């Protein structure tokens, strides 16, 4: 277990260094800087220069980076250029929204993906399988932002079942929370649901011809027991691997979906800070996201061992 968790934790350090430094570098290369972004419309060069001095943008890149790094290691992620709010405070404010959206859409994706995958695998090549495969392929091809807009058009504009935008915290009641998150979560879940369905289907069909299932049938197990107990546990290994990738992709998707539905989460914040060149906030978001993705990877790797005893190593 130590090996399983320890190694990725060690890999975390260089990854974080590379990722944060890349952000510094990209901001440096990008045209314009925070000076221009903060000075308002048609600023005089003096004003821009004054802001630059204040933000110490005239100092060399490496010096600024290591300064930031030194503070970050001590838990100080700096302050927003724009609002002077501490970055960590800002992140903590926004994180629950994105987590809500992410967890809900992941739950939807897993439920729908497993249900569809199992349904299709029960009778491979038959009508149900063909419908599931066709629908999943279409769902894979559709970008989530397009789907989001279509969902809004149907369920919020034509039939006012759900709101077009906005967010309600869980403390305002689970009903309100769900009411606001339903459409964005659905839009975000579609892609991973399709991936899971297709992956699970082919994994289950691959298990179907295996000798251990024949032997299990020969000892009197029922079709349901063969499918849900034996085949599913074996087929879950590749699906969990895919799930890990999808979670990272899902996080990327929140930027667009949160922007469309005006959900005040990390995604929306990321989009805004990128426009304003609010570098400390940007770095904070990148750091948190990287940590999160790495954590997901560790959990996924550890769960392999739970599903597949061979990976648990010799005792």
């Amino acid at each position, binding site marked *: 277990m130590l090996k399983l968790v320890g190694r990725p934790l060690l890999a975390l350090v260089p990854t974080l260094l590379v990722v944060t430094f890349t952000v510094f570098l990209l901001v440096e290369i990008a045209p314009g800087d925070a000076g221009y972004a903060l000075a308002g419309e048609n600023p005089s060069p003096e004003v821009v220069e004054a802001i630059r001095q204040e933000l110490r943008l005239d100092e060399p890149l490496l010096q600024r980076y290591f300064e930031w790094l030194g503070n970050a290691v001590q838990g100080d992620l700096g302050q927003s250029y724009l609002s002077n709010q501490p970055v960590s405070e800002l992140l903590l404010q926004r994180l629950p929204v994105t987590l809500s959206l992410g967890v809900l859409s992941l739950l939807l994706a897993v439920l729908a993906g497993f249900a569809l995958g199992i349904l299709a695998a029960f009778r491979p090549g038959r009508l149900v399988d063909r419908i599931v495969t066709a629908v999943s392929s279409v769902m894979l091809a559709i970008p989530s932002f397009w789907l989001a807009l279509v969902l809004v058009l149907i369920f919020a504009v034509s039939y006012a079942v759900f709101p077009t935008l906005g967010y309600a915290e869980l403390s305002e009641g689970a009903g309100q929370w769900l009411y606001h998150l339903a459409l964005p979560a659905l839009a975000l879940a579609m892609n991973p649901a399709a991936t899971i369905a297709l992956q699970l289907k082919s994994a289950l069909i691959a298990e179907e011809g295996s*000798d251990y299932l*024949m032997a*299990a049938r020969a*000892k009197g197990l*029922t079709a349901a027991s063969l499918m849900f107990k034996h085949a599913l*546990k074996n087929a879950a290994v590749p699906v969990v691997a895919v799930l890990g990738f999808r979670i990272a992709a899902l996080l990327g998707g929140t930027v667009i979906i949160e922007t469309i539905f005006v959900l005040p989460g990390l995604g929306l914040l990321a989009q805004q800070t990128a426009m304003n060149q609010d570098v400390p906030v940007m770095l904070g978001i990148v750091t948190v996201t990287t940590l999160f993705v790495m954590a997901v990877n560790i959990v996924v790797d550890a769960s392999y061992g739970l599903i597949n005893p061979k990976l648990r190593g010799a005792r």
Partner: protein
Amino acid sequence: MSLLSVRDLSVSFRGPGGWVPVTDRVSFDVEAGTTVGLVGESGSGKTVTALSAMGLTRAQGARVTGQVLFDGEDLATLSQRELSTRRGATISMIFQQAIRTLDPAFTVGEQIAESVRRHERVSRKEAWRRAVEMLDRVHIPRAAERAAEYPHTFSGGMCQRAMIAMALACSPKLVFADEPTTALDVTVQARILDLLREIQRDTGIAVVFISHDLGVIAELAQHVVVMYAGQVVERAGVEELFLRPRHPYTAGLLNAIPAVGRGRRLISIPGNVPAPGAMPPGCRFHPRCPHGVTGRCDTGPVDLVEDVRCVRSGEVPLLGIPTPAGARS
């Protein structure tokens, strides 16, 4: 009445161009407590016959006709749901590749206990106790510990022992043993055969032992059913079959048994078993038969007459050998 009576069992699988017949009217009987050897080269339909007798090929979509009279009922007429209460309980099967027939995701004990709980109303604890008991029974050392381990930590021979324990956990009346020793080392092979003999002596279970090796069959079986290209070509008691084979294919198999220090030249049968759907006209063995006669062997289909399927039966002298067991004593 026999414990198992397979009558005219024909099995077809769906191929790209329609149904492909794999076995043709296979018939044989197994008496309670005895061992019947089902012998033939790969592709002769032995495994398909065993799987079909248990209704397992039907579950895969095969077309099966004929009767499987077992323990007072015709298994061929039962639904999969009804069959699932018989499989593992009164009729069971041991497979060739034990390592691949144990589910890698569950412990060996769990898989044996699962079988017990499927057929008997016992608690989880009791089922586990039975699993450990069965592992002990098949001589797996430290059975209580090993029961909690996964199949990949077991060697090939140990897997086969676990497989035997799983198949026999509910004390079935008959077990199909499909080449249970073929994938194992020779020394391990002998120990597994000893184990099967021991279990049969203690429990009186009937065994249908499937093998391509008549030498192994001679060690266990009282009766032998020889299959070729999906048909039974000869049925006889084991001594009789070894000493006086009546089908040229049986004689060919006998002469292919390696014998140490007996100075007999090993003769293999030339050619291969024809593929299903591409059977030669007349006797299916005639293209490979040293005694084949044009005009007699390659015309109409040959029927099983007095337990042998050969138009020249009795005409040609066929050389037998003493059974290895007889030679040893």
